[in-house]
C-alpha cells in the first residue's frame, strides 16, 4: 500500500483534485452538464496529445521544444491535403500525416544522436525548421477537413447497455483520445522497448551497460513523440476545420502539464496518466475562470499561481513524507 502511494500517490491526488474541480464547477454553474463535459473533452484533445508527445521524451531523459511546431506542420499538411479533396481521400491523409510525424520525430532523435548536440538545442532548431516548413505549406490559415473527421469528435458514443444519461457523459472526443493514447502506450509500457525508454531516462550509463541500445531507444522515443504530436496536429485540423501555420500555445503548456502530472524532468519517472489528468485539471480551471467571469488580466495570475502552488505543494509533501533516516 505504501509503495502504491509512493508510486501512484501523485496521480491519485491529481485525480482527487480533478473531482474536486468538477464539484466546484457544478456549484458555480448548476447547469453544467454532459454537453459542457463534451466541450471540455474537445478542448483537452490537442493539449493531451501535445502532453503525451512531451511525456515520452521527458521519460527518456530529454525534452522536445518542437512539439507545437510539429503540430502546426502536421495540421497544415493535413488541412491542405484535404482541401478540395474527396471524403475518402482523408482515409489516406490520416495515416500519411501520422507517418510524417513519426518520421520527423525520428529525425529529431537521429539528429540528437548523430550530432551529439544537446536535445534542447536540436529540438529548438527543429522548432524553427518545422515552423518554416509549415509556412511553406500554408502561408496563411486555410485548408479543410473531411466531414467525417470533423464528426468524429462531435457528439457522444452510444455504449450498449448503458442508459442514455450515462452515454451522454461519454463524448467521442474522450473516447478518441483514450483509444489513440492506449493503442500506443499500453503495449509500449509493458514491452522491453518501453522499459528501455525509462532506463535511458533514469540512468543512461547503467542502461547502456545493461545492454540497452541507447541511441536506438532515444530515436524511438522521439519518433513516438512525433507520432503523438501528429495526432495533436490532426486533432487541431479536425476541431477547427483548418490548418494554421503559427503554432499554438502547446509547448509550454505541455511542459507544465508533464511536471504537474508527476513526471520528473530529469527522466525515468512517471507515466502518461498523470500528465493527461493534469491537462484536464488545467482546462477545467480555465473553464471555471470563464464561468466566474474573472477579470481576464487576473486569470493569467491565477493560472500561474495554481501551477506554482500545485508543484510547490507536491514538493512540500515529498519533503515531509520522506522517511526518517533518508538524507536529502
Amino acid at each position, binding site marked *: 500500500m505504501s509503495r502504491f502511494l509512493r508510486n501512484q500517490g501523485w496521480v491519485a491526488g491529481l485525480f482527487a483534485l480533478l473531482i474536486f474541480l468538477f464539484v466546484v464547477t457544478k456549484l458555480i454553474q448548476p447547469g453544467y452538464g454532459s454537453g459542457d463535459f463534451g466541450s471540455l473533452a474537445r*478542448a483537452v484533445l490537442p493539449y493531451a496529445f501535445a502532453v503525451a508527445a512531451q511525456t515520452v521524451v521527458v521519460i527518456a531523459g530529454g525534452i522536445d521544444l518542437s512539439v507545437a511546431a510539429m503540430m502546426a506542420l502536421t495540421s497544415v499538411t493535413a488541412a491542405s491535403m484535404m482541401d478540395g479533396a474527396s471524403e475518402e481521400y482523408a482515409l489516406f491523409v490520416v495515416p500519411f500525416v501520422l507517418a510524417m510525424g513519426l518520421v520527423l520525430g525520428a529525425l529529431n532523435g537521429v539528429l540528437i544522436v548523430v550530432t551529439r548536440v544537446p536535445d534542447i538545442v536540436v529540438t529548438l532548431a527543429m522548432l524553427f525548421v518545422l515552423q518554416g516548413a*509549415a*509556412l511553406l505549406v500554408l502561408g496563411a*490559415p486555410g485548408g479543410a477537413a473531411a466531414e467525417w473527421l470533423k464528426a468524429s469528435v462531435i457528439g457522444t458514443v452510444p455504449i450498449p447497455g448503458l442508459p442514455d444519461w450515462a452515454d451522454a457523459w461519454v463524448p467521442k472526443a474522450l473516447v478518441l483520445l483514450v483509444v489513440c493514447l492506449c493503442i500506443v502506450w499500453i503495449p509500449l509500457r509493458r514491452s522491453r522497448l518501453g522499459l528501455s525508454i525509462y532506463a535511458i531516462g533514469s540512468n543512461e550509463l547503467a542502461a547502456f551497460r545493461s545492454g540497452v541500445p541507447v541511441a536506438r531507444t532515444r530515436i524511438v522515443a522521439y519518433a513516438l513523440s512525433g507520432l503523438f504530436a501528429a495526432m495533436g496536429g490532426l486533432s487541431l485540423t479536425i476541431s477547427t476545420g483548418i490548418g494554421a501555420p*503559427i503554432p499554438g500555445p502547446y509547448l509550454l503548456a505541455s511542459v507544465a502539464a508533464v511536471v504537474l502530472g508527476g513526471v520528473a524532468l530529469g527522466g525515468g519517472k512517471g507515466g502518461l496518466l498523470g500528465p493527461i489528468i493534469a491537462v484536464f485539471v488545467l482546462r477545467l480551471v*480555465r*473553464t471555471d475562470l470563464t464561468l466566474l*467571469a474573472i477579470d481576464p488580466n487576473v486569470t493569467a495570475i491565477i493560472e500561474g499561481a495554481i501551477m506554482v502552488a500545485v508543484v510547490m505543494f507536491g514538493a512540500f509533501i515529498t519533503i515531509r513524507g520522506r522517511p526518517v533516516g533518508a538524507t536529502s
Partner: protein
Amino acid sequence: AGKYTIGISNTVQGNGWREEMICAMKAQALASGEVAKLNIAHRNTDAAGQLEDIRNLISAKVDAIVVNPADPAGIKAGLEEATKAGIVVVAVDQAVTEPSAYIISNNQEQYAYLGAKWLFQQMGGKGEVLYMRGAAGASADSDRDKGFKKALAEFPDVKVAQEVFTGWQQDQAKQQILSFLATGTPINGIWTSGIDNVIVDALVEQQAPMVPVVGADNAGFVGQLSSVKGLVGAAVTNPGSIGGAGVTLALQILDGKKPAQQTVLVEPQLWENATDEGKAKLKSVVDPSLSPEWPVSISIPDWTTYTKEQIVACKGPGE
C-alpha cells in the same frame, strides 16, 4: 442596471491595439447601460483555444458573444453552436465564415490598399519600397497582403526592395530596419503593417535619408507625423474601438434591431502630412497622453457612445 451578459473572446494579449479593443468593449458596455456583466476570455491562444473559450462562454449562458476571431474559418463550429444555443454572435475586426454570425470589421484589404496607393503616389509611381509585413501565417496579414499587392499592380514601376515579417513586434522590426539600412540599399518608401514608430526612430537615429512611411494610427506614429522634421507619412486608421462597435451591434440585435446586412465594414481613413488639410487633420487627432501603441481613433462615430475618460479608465459594468 443592465440586463444582458455579454461574452468576449480575444486571442492576442499584450498588444496595444487589442488592449484598446478590450477597453472599448468595456467602456461601451458600461456606457450603454444595458449590460449587467461582461465575461471576457482574453489570452494568447489559437483557433482551437478560441473554440474552447467560446464553448465555455456558451456554458456560462451569456446572451451575446463578441469575438475577434483567431481565424475566419477555424471557429465556425463554435459559433454555430452558440447560435444554436440562442446566443447572438458578432465578429469584430475580421470576418468569419459562419453565416449566422454578424460581422463588424475593419476592412484589412482596404487598409493596406489605401496606404500603399498613397505611398506609391508619393514615390512618384516608381522606385523601391520596403515592405514590412506583420506575422507570417496570420490571416489579417494575408488580407493586408492582398491589398498591398493590388496597389502594387497599379504601379508597375514600383518594386519591392525587400519583404520582411516583423511579427508585429517592435524589437524585431527595429533590428530588421537597422540591418536593412546598413546594407545601404537605396529605397524610396516604407510600408509598415502598423509597427511604425520604431521605423521612424531608426531613420532618425541612423540619420538615414527620410523616405515616406506608411503606418497605422497609433498614438506614437501620429505624434511623429506632426513632430519629426522631414518625415512625410500617412497613418491609416485601424480603430481598436471596433470592439466597442461590436458591443453596440450585439446590443442592437438583442434589442430586436437587426441590421440590414450581416456584414458591416468600417472603412479606413488615411491621414497624411503631405498636404495642409492633412496636417490640420493630424493636429486634431494627435493625442500624446495615450500610450504610443494605442490607436488614436478611440471612437467610431455612430457606433460608440463612451467618452475618452471611460475608455481610458478601461472599466466595464460592475467593476
